[in-house]
């Protein structure tokens, strides 16, 4: 009886691990799309209204998807803290702060970091160009993330369950 309970728990743990990895694949395209939407908002705030970056980030945080809102809120908070941080540094800190909780990959954060380095330090035309470049890169990332999600979500669900089951059989 105890053995069966243990085996059941091993299978459950394996399945959960599989679901968790699969979930990362599922979340990444959603987060990338939310990020692209938010950057589009930021582009509008900068190009049409020339709103100061701190305010623009707060507006974006308010309107963006829940997946990426904490990032923009954190960037705005770092910028307004009065610690003498440049936009690039505030942005970088926000990236570091939210990275562990997001399903994005290092290459996606690389796109964000590259954009952060140019934020706020040139005229509108140039800012719009940098955001457009980041959007292009995110668009490409969304396509590959969706393909990955299609391929790997089920695979990892099955692998997790299978690995748990296999381990349970070996242990029993």
């Amino acid at each position, binding site marked *: 009886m105890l053995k069966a309970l243990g085996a059941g728990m091993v299978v459950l743990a394996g399945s959960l691990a599989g679901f968790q990895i699969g979930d990362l694949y599922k979340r990444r395209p959603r987060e990338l799309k939310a990020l692209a939407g938010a950057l589009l908002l930021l582009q509008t705030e900068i190009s049409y209204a020339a709103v100061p*970056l701190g305010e623009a980030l707060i507006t974006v945080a308010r309107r963006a998807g829940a997946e990426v809102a904490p990032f923009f809120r954190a960037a705005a908070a770092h910028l307004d803290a009065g610690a003498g941080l440049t936009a690039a540094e505030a942005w970088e800190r926000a990236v570091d702060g939210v990275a562990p909780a997001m399903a994005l990959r290092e290459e996606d954060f690389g796109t964000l970091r590259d954009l952060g380095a140019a934020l706020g330090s040139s005229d509108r035309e140039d800012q719009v160009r940098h955001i457009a470049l980041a959007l292009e890169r995110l668009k490409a990332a969304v396509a590959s993330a969706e393909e990955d999600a299609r391929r790997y979500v089920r695979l990892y669900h099955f692998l997790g369950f299978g690995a748990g089951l296999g381990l349970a059989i070996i242990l029993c």
Partner: protein
Amino acid sequence: MVTKECCFQEALLRFFPATIREVLKPVPVWDEVEEVRLKAGRPLLLRLAQGEAFVSPAGFLVDRPERGYLVTPEEISRTVNIASNASLYAFEEEVRNGYLTLPGGHRLGLTGRVALEKEAIRTFKYITGLNFRVAREVRGAASRILPYILCGTPLHVCHTLIVSPPRAGKTTLLRDLVRQLSSGIPEFGFPGVTVGLVDERSEIAACFRGVPQLDVGVRTDVLDACPKAEGIRLLVRAFGPEVVATDEIGRAEDARAVEDALNAGVKVVATAHAGTLEELKKRPFFRYLFALGVMERFVLLKRREKPGEVAAILDGAGKPARTEIRCRGAEVGKEGSRFTVHGSGLGGWR
């Protein structure tokens, strides 16, 4: 007072990156600082009310440039980023004019390599030099000249031109003049008038989102960052001010707007860049203004040891102005006499 100066210093230091803050923080003469000059690869320089000094890495004032703190190009770009609130794109028009107006009315002048478009500056490709000009609100700065600006019974404001070389305090004087004319002067029994202020460079009222950050009086309508000519016309048409005030007139298009204001019966109080009245008379705009013969008062400022020193107050004919006001607390000198720079109570405002 110490606390106020300390807060003022803290507020100014927030425009600089951490490394420059560390250098500037121990500087003992913050109440004297008029300009902070940063140039890439060259020592940090302060222009003080009296003279100038380099700042050592430990924050001491030194005479020799080689002992001064060397500013890096990185620190220049960080300063621009922080001072502009990481939003240089929001200052495009100002960048084209070579400066940013910061919260509090302070001004950050820019130099470096520019990018041109149709022979006009489009933007700065590299910013390598900065001049941070500190704006100070000096309440009472205009008290000494007010008895000469108000005349008649009942008291009314004279058409006034404040003539001054750079860094002699004309904007500070104009700000306080506007404040007092707008809020009223109980000592003179002057109830206050509606003032329309066209603040093209956001230096007088230091507006943040259109709300004045410095006191320009209770009856003052401020048009912030608005071209002078357009602003004067708009105010005269829509706000019916009794006085229109603006800084640094002199361009051809200002002439029509000033004339419009005069025709509408509005009093004009303005400033102009010049060392002397004679210098001013050589310029076409002012020749035209003098030909109209409407200016009633010329306040000439001179920078000697300190800013805000009144050299003379003249009437429309160029003769020393007279005052009809006698009141308590106002040291206005002898009636009809020319202001003397070192006379008691007539010196600078610090």
